[in-house]
């Protein structure tokens, strides 16, 4: 047994020096303590920064994604959606959103929320950027003082998302007249506002709300008239065709225009600020007020086919009213059926004549007016049906002075006033036509034909002349023209810089397209070349068979 295999005794071994233990390893506990401190501080920071959580109910949750959909106020992200659930009655979708702390002050009781999706309306296209980035929830803060956490979302974005300054006005019309929400409002062909709402009132009329931006709302005064400026206004008048339109947007989406109305304002027609009438077109809007209508009745002893309700009544050519009713009466004495026409007249439409009469005191009351009419009747005023247009066969009533009329009795006290009538001349047209036809019948046709024949022979000879002499020189001229065009064509030939430039461009495009095609084909054959680059190719072997030249039949 060698000394090496025996474990040494304690005395043989050297004694190590003793040293006290180091305390450094104990410092390691700093690490977990620091880790815990960091973790807790993170937790506290996160909890402190938590903003409010709100719930918005929408009819549909289309496009809203938990964790991704953002809530934006004035296009600044203030929060995100944290949950989307159905309501208990399954009628609405409840969207919960966590907002940042500083957005808490925006949550008033009348704050509005809506989902911004791509929307295409007649007047506008909005929200297209959401096609790429996903829908988001827009927000508009309200003015109430109460804070709120539960909201009902709007299905459509509000017309004014950020409260521009201006004035809201209500217009009343019998019909909406193809106006869409968002349709423009013009003042002297300058857009100053928008239609923001349309409502059907219980009585059947329409109320249109418009918003006029400041400072243009200063143009809206009590004398302002609003009219529907949609579409294209086409008027065919004595001065020709007149086409008017406010703008393409107005043609497509409808539009409203306004301007100062006629300066004379009836005492009874002062508009309340904020409430206006919407007229059908500019003419109607700018028409001076009509005043009260006066009803008159006329008896005609001829058929009035073509006289419609609403047909105009003209006095010395000026439109002063329209037909209200066309009726058939029965007179027992003569056993005849007169046509009874009722019309309403607006004496004010006579314009200056009316003013002159008013100065003379003739318009003070219905009685004085009737008396005045009586004097006119004595001078020959009669109501006569006339043809408005031969094409349409429509009639209108003309009040005119007919010197050949017989004296008739006029009672100024009957109400409604009865005007004496005269027969219309339109029936005479038929008689004239008949006479014309007879005249044509009596023409000596055979004589005419013989004369014509002789003339034709003459013409034939002239034509032969023409052919013989005139045409050849014409042909010469044409061939000279042809040569000229030829040389012009050659001038415009390949030499011209335009041609050369075009040819060069085409050639360049052709090479580009060819290069693109080759690249595409190469990628088609070797799609991996995108990653791996071009691989070297082994030289292909020619076929062992005989070459084609030898195998040719």
């Amino acid at each position, binding site marked *: 047994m060698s000394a090496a295999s025996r*474990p*040494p*005794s*304690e005395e043989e*071994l*050297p*004694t*190590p*020096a*003793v*040293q*006290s*233990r*180091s305390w450094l*390893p*104990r410092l*390691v*506990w700093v*690490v*977990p303590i*620091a*880790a*815990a401190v*960091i*973790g807790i501080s*993170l937790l506290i920071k996160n909890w402190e920064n938590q903003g409010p959580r709100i719930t918005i109910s929408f009819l549909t949750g289309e496009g809203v994604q938990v964790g*991704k959909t953002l809530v934006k106020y004035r296009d600044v992200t203030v929060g995100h959606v944290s949950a989307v659930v159905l309501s208990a009655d399954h009628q609405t979708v409840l969207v919960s959103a966590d907002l940042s702390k500083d957005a808490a002050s925006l949550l008033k009781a009348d704050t509005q929320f809506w989902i911004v999706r791509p929307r295409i309306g007649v007047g506008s296209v909005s929200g297209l950027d959401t096609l*790429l*980035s*996903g829908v988001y929830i827009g927000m508009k803060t309200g003015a109430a003082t109460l804070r709120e956490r539960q909201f009902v979302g709007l299905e459509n974005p509000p017309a004014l998302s950020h409260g521009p300054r201006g004035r809201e006005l209500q217009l009343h019309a019998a019909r909406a007249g193809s106006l869409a929400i968002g349709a423009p409002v013009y003042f002297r062909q300058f857009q100053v506002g928008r239609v923001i709402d349309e409502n059907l009132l219980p009585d059947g009329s329409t109320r249109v709300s418009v918003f006029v931006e400041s400072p243009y709302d200063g143009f809206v005064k009590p004398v302002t008239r609003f009219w529907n400026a949609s579409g294209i206004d086409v008027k065919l008048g004595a001065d020709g065709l007149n086409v008017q339109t406010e703008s393409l947007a107005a043609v497509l989406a409808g539009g409203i225009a306004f301007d100062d109305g006629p300066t004379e304002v009836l005492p009874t027609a002062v508009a309340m600020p904020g409430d206006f009438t919407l007229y059908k077109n500019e003419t109607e809007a700018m028409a001076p007020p009509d005043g009260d209508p006066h009803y008159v009745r006329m008896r005609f002893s001829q058929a009035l086919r073509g006289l419609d309700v609403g047909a105009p009544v003209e006095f010395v050519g000026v439109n002063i009213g329209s037909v209200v009713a066309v009726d058939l009466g029965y007179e027992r004495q003569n056993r005849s059926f007169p046509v009874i026409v009722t019309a309403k007249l607006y004496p004010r439409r006579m314009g200056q004549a009316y003013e002159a009469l008013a100065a003379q005191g003739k318009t003070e009351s219905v009685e004085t007016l009737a008396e005045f009419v009586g004097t006119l009747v004595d001078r020959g005023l009669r109501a006569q049906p006339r043809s408005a247009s031969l094409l349409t066969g429509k009639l209108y009533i003309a009040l005119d002075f007919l010197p050949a009329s017989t004296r008739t009795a006029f009672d100024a006290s009957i109400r409604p006033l009865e005007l004496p009538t005269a027969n219309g001349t339109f029936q005479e047209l038929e008689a004239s036509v008949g006479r014309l036809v007879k005249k044509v019948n009596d023409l000596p046709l055979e004589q005419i034909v013989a004369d014509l024949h002789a003339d034709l022979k003459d013409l034939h000879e002239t034509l032969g002349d023409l052919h013989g002499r005139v045409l050849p020189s014409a042909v010469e001229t044409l061939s000279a023209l042809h040569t000229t065009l030829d040389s012009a064509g050659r001038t415009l030939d390949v030499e011209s810089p335009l041609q050369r430039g075009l040819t060069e461009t085409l050639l360049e495009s052709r090479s580009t397209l060819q290069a693109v095609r080759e690249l595409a084909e190469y990628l088609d054959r070797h799609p991996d070349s995108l990653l791996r680059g071009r691989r070297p190719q082994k030289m292909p072997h020619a076929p062992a068979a005989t070459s084609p030249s030898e195998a040719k039949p």
Partner: protein
Amino acid sequence: MTSFKQSLELGLIRCPTCGLAVSRASLRMDRRCPRCQDRIEHRTPLSSEMTLAWLIAGIVLYIPANLLPVMHTGGLPGEADSTILGGIFEFWRSGDWDIALLIFIASVAVPFTKFIAIGLLLLTVRKNSRWQQHQRTALYRIVEFIGYWSMLDVIVVALTSALLQFQMLGTAEPRPGIAFFCAVVVVTMLSALSFDPRLIWDRRT
């Protein structure tokens, strides 16, 4: 097993640096080798304590590593933060179950395994238990070996953030979560390093 003698029973301690056999004197205090002056310790002092400290640090840091986002991607389809678990779930849902599994193993299974394994080693060592000593040593080896593989996720985030800078088409940025995760990996590695495996085999003396 009782036939194997510990060096201590033979009255010997070996200097780890120069190999000098030194007599066993006091077990409780640090000693220096008379030849090379380096420390001679029978067992790494405070090994269990340090291991425990690093382990606790690792567990505490693992929570923000998972809660905070690790990467922020942006570009045309939108901006999004992603956490480790969120990323695994996304991959699983979109059908890439193999990538989801890979990340799960590297970023969730491995750290958890390490926590549990080191915890187990600490517990059994404290009790001087004789249960499954071979297996426990093997377990220690495994923990040491798999330690750095969790860095896979950290490296990929770093690479992606560096390379994916195409402005509109796609951008990527790291977020604090990945720093915490990196810290977890480092700390658990340190925990495994400071564990003295010889403690597994110690007998109650």
